[in-house]
């Protein structure tokens, strides 16, 4: 344990060590270690239902792990009280699978919501920022629409814009391209890359969309039976001799 702690560097935004989680005696995460440095984009590959999303939800505190430690910006996330956890969470963005837009609010209100709910919000005009973020995702004209009027891909893009409203330092993407056509998937992938470049945010992306992974990743980790079995760049892993790992790359 000690040697692991020593290896934490200042530019490590997220450090996960020995993460374990099981549901009803069914182990999902056995021993997960992960480190993300500033500006880095890491993609987690893995088969459906193997707990990739669970890792993300543990990081953001939606699921409490059985054991292990999660350090975000150097703070031990699991030992924080609710208030501290809440203020730390704001620095972490989370893009949900379906965008998770609030049905009862317009796009504008959706984007406002995270900001005006912050304890420090003093009633500043958010229009400029909302328009900037919507412009980023190319949906400025949807500003007064309801989520139900938008397509799945548009909802995800608005979701990304909403995530960006709080200027996060790291964004966790939960299958950002799942359920979308290849063209839209490609658009989303490029958007992730653009945001990364524009705002310099780190990213942790759970996906099994290989074109997306190739486009955005600096590094890829492969989750198998609750552990990361392989790690490397896209090109490195593409050449892997491991059948499980290379299986992800045989999509063409």
């Amino acid at each position, binding site marked *: 344990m000690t040697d692991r702690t020593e290896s934490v560097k200042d530019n490590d935004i997220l450090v996960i060590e020995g993460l374990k989680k099981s549901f009803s005696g069914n182990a999902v995460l056995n021993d997960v270690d992960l480190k993300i440095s500033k500006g880095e984009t890491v993609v987690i590959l893995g088969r459906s239902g193997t707990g990739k999303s669970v890792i993300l939800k543990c990081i953001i505190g939606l699921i409490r792990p059985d054991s292990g430690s999660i350090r975000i910006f150097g703070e031990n996330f699991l030992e924080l009280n609710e208030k501290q956890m809440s203020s730390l969470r704001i620095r972490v963005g989370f893009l949900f699978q379906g965008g998770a837009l609030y049905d009862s609010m317009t796009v504008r209100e959706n984007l*406002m919501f995270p900001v*005006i709910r912050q304890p420090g919000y003093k009633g500043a005009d958010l229009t400029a920022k909302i328009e900037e973020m919507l412009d980023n995702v190319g949906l400025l004209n949807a500003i007064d629409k309801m989520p139900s009027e938008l397509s799945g891909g548009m909802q995800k893009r608005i979701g990304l814009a909403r995530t960006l409203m709080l200027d996060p330092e790291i964004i966790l993407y939960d299958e950002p391209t799942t359920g979308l056509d290849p063209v839209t998937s490609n658009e989303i992938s490029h958007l992730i890359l653009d945001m990364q470049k524009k705002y310099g945010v780190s990213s942790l992306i759970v996906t099994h969309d290989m074109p997306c992974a190739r486009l955005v990743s600096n590094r890829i980790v492969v989750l198998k039976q609750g552990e990361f079995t392989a790690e490397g760049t896209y090109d490195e892993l593409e050449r892997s001799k491991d059948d499980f790992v290379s299986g992800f790359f045989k999509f063409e």
Partner: protein
Amino acid sequence: MGMDKSKLLKLGIFITAGLLLLIAGLFYIGSRDNLFTKTFEITSTFSSVNGLNEGNNVQFAGINVGTVKSIVIMSTDKVKVIMNIKSDVRHFIKKDSEASINSEGLVGNKVLMISGGTPGSASVESGDTLKAVMPAQLGDIINNLNQSSKEAEVIAKEISEITKKVNQGEGTLGRLINNSDLYDNLDSLTSNIAGSTEKIDRILAQTSGTINTVTGDIQSLTQSIRTITDNLGEITTKINSSESFVGTLLTDTSFANNIKGVVRNTNRTTANLEMGSFSFYQNMEALKHNFLFKGYFEDLGYWDKSQYQQTMASRENRILNKEFDLEQRETELRELQIKLETMRNELQKKLDSLDARGK
């Protein structure tokens, strides 16, 4: 996310309407429960409150003037009732007013009723104790009913005695019997006997009144017949005794007409008597079939057919005697008339001859 003004307005109206209704309702009930009016307390001690509850109304002259505040058991046979009375009726309630517990209806709530008290006596003060009148128990009411039916029996007996007297009495039977009020009254009396005692009392009072009237009528009729008979006797004597009187009599034809009228009246009375005896028979029959009198008639042995026939026969005899009497008088009158007629004729002849001589 926030609420726009029109929605806030609607919500505001919605909530206000509900609250206003609630407040209105509370005040409505409250005003009846005297929560918002000035009240004072008086007490009364009963041996039993017959299911009176806290919160029941207190009535004065049938008006709700307050509520029962609390009921406290003082000892085994003393229950203290504390009531809240509206201050503005205080001066109507006197120190000698009495409190009693009654029911609002057959199945209704209990109410505490305060009687008026003596006019002019002092008004109650807060904290006074009113004299309690024990509530009427159901048992008492039944006792009352029993008492009433006993009284009814006595009265029925009296009626029967009167009937008997009438039956045995002289003369003017018809008048009594033709008066259907008695029978009607008796009939309604019997059908109402199961009803309220008050009603029974009233009808009985009416019935005895009717009987008194009838008895009075009988007496006066008897009197008048007696007078006529006396008059006839007097006239006959006068005619027979005084020659000089005959002259006057003969010149005055109205007297003769009077005599004729008396004779006609006598005839009619006789006819009435016949009619009367028939309807009396009918009424007696109806009476005997009435459950109320049946027992009495049976006790008396009236229900025995032969005895009844005997009675009827003897009564008929008496009526026939009476008729015979009257017929005799009629005959006498007729004879008298004929005599008078002949006397007049003779007198006329004498007058004629005197006239002829004078010429």
